[in-house]
């Protein structure tokens, strides 16, 4: 043990004449190693969810024609949200998987408002996430309906606002607009991959496989960037720098929302994480964490850019953040959840 102390001391002395001391080098080395571990951890964890999302998307692409899909979507923009929320509740995936599905719906001509609502609501309103919330917050059962209710309201409002503001091709990412994988033009001559009854089942399943593989890679590239940034933030910014913000209610909500954005934790387990902060922050701050995390995070914003134009994503982020912040603040001021 004495030897260990000697080595440490030598490292400090050497450090005087060198740009980085031994402890600084060790610190940087640990930082990089932990960054790599967290980065790969996020990717490994997200892979099955992302794959499920792209496979569902590929099935919709190949087996469901635009006409058939649009038959289920009411013309009324308010009623159009109902099937979007319904599909969201049936998709047991977190935000990694649902972007691919939302992209597909957009490309098939489903109204923008319904797609945005689906995108924002499905990671929270799915049964797995709600069950996890109920399990984690056994001591505060109202958290389940508060989380679900707020997610529903925010997703519907943001969807309607974005849908009102911009329609059709105005919102689509340039990559998506020009991409041959998706079909905005329903009159093109290349129908053999989607709903052509003349094609055999095997060739259609092959098309599903190819489509899923391609889409997996195009979504993975943004997930890689999002995971890299999220994990870098985790090893660079001490968590106390964020949590120490939360002295008042307003700052507590800001702190928890920032934490959710930075951490990019999967929506199916974030309730357990939020629970560990329940002794530090009030319920509205935890609620804000649970609602914004699955909707907007470092990981998901990049993925949204594969579906929407940057200014639409910016508007989506701003509206969602504002609505959640104000809702949490109002709930706190009204004292309904304290």
């Amino acid at each position, binding site marked *: 043990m004495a030897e260990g102390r000697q080595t440490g001391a030598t490292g400090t002395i050497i450090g005087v004449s060198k740009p980085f001391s031994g402890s600084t080098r060790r610190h940087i080395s640990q930082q990089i190693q932990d960054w*790599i571990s967290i980065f790969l951890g996020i990717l490994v964890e997200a892979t099955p969810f992302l794959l499920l999302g792209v496979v569902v998307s590929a099935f919709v692409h190949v087996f469901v024609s635009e006409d058939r899909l649009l038959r289920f979507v009411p013309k009324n923009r308010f009623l159009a949200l109902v099937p979007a929320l319904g599909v969201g509740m049936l998709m047991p995936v977190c935000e990694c998987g649902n972007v691919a599905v939302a992209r597909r719906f957009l490309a098939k001509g489903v109204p923008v408002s319904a797609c945005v609502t689906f995108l924002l609501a499905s990671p929270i309103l799915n049964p797995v996430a709600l069950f996890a919330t109920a399990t984690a917050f056994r001591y505060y059962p109202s958290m389940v309906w508060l989380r679900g209710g707020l997610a529903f309201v925010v997703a519907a409002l943001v969807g309607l606002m974005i849908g009102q503001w911009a329609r059709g091709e105005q919102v689509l990412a340039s990559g998506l607009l020009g991409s041959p994988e998706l079909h905005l033009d329903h009159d093109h001559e290349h129908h053999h991959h989607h709903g052509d009854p003349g094609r055999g089942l095997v060739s259609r399943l092959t098309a599903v496989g190819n489509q899923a593989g391609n889409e997996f890679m195009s979504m993975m590239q943004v997930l890689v960037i999002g995971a890299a940034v999220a994990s870098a933030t985790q090893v660079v910014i001490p968590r106390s720098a964020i949590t120490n913000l939360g002295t008042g209610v307003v700052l507590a909500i800001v702190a928890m929302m920032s934490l959710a954005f930075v951490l990019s934790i999967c929506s199916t387990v974030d309730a357990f994480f939020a629970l560990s902060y*329940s002794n530090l922050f009030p319920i509205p701050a935890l609620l804000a964490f649970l609602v914004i995390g699955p909707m907007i995070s470092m990981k998901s914003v990049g993925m949204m850019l594969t579906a929407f134009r940057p200014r639409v994503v910016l508007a989506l982020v701003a509206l969602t953040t504002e609505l959640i912040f104000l809702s949490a603040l109002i709930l706190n001021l009204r004292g309904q959840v304290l």
Partner: protein
Amino acid sequence: MTIRIERLRARHASWGIDIRRFLGPFILAGYGLFILSLFMRNVMQLYINPVYIAPTTLAGAVLVGLAALSFARPSVDACNCEDACGCSDSHTMGLHTYGLLCVPLLLALLFPPRALASFSAIERGPQAAGMTVLHGASSVKRVSLSVNTKTFGMMDWVGALSADPNPRDYQGKPVQVTGMVLHAPGSVPTGYIMVIRYMVTCCIADARPVGLVVRDTSHGALKDNQWVTVTGTMTSASESGQKVAVVAPTKMVVTKSGNPYMY
């Protein structure tokens, strides 16, 4: 001369298409094999909670299958798809995109899976059982006279102290826990160290460092990241005017590093 240049251009163009055609499936297979190798080497739990190992491994196998399917599909020319819906999308991706997708695979190749060390515990703020209310510990055992605490692992102690942090209820109870040493001057009383593990719910991005406060009988000889098995009894110490449960060790043995995660 012009003809030769045109031929070279054509050859280069065909190489470009071929490279892109095979790069996509190659990378897909890479991701699939990376995941399968984690499973085969039994190290996937260093990244994710074991609950997710089965679906993740299945995803790895599916990715390898999708890669094989992509390898087998005809080229763009053979398919004659002008807009290439679904069957030739890979040729629309730039080489820089493939490069980006290779980064995680290269990192996985160069750096073997490694658990988080004390550095991340300090960054995340270690939580001492008995001093902080720790939620999310799945196995909570109530300590009573009928419970033999010798069998308690770290998770059991964290659960018990979260449910009932009163140190008097644990006075004299035997303790034997193994974990990583962490000096956390701001978090524990002077002269004490923490022996910690990480609680992981989904993946290591959500890992939370939790542990017991232990009297440092090594007088500073133990370093961060060292693994120790602490044997002793529960007692109490004063921290900010409050009594908190701490371990009074009778023996601290440095042990081989293990998996620091509790799921």
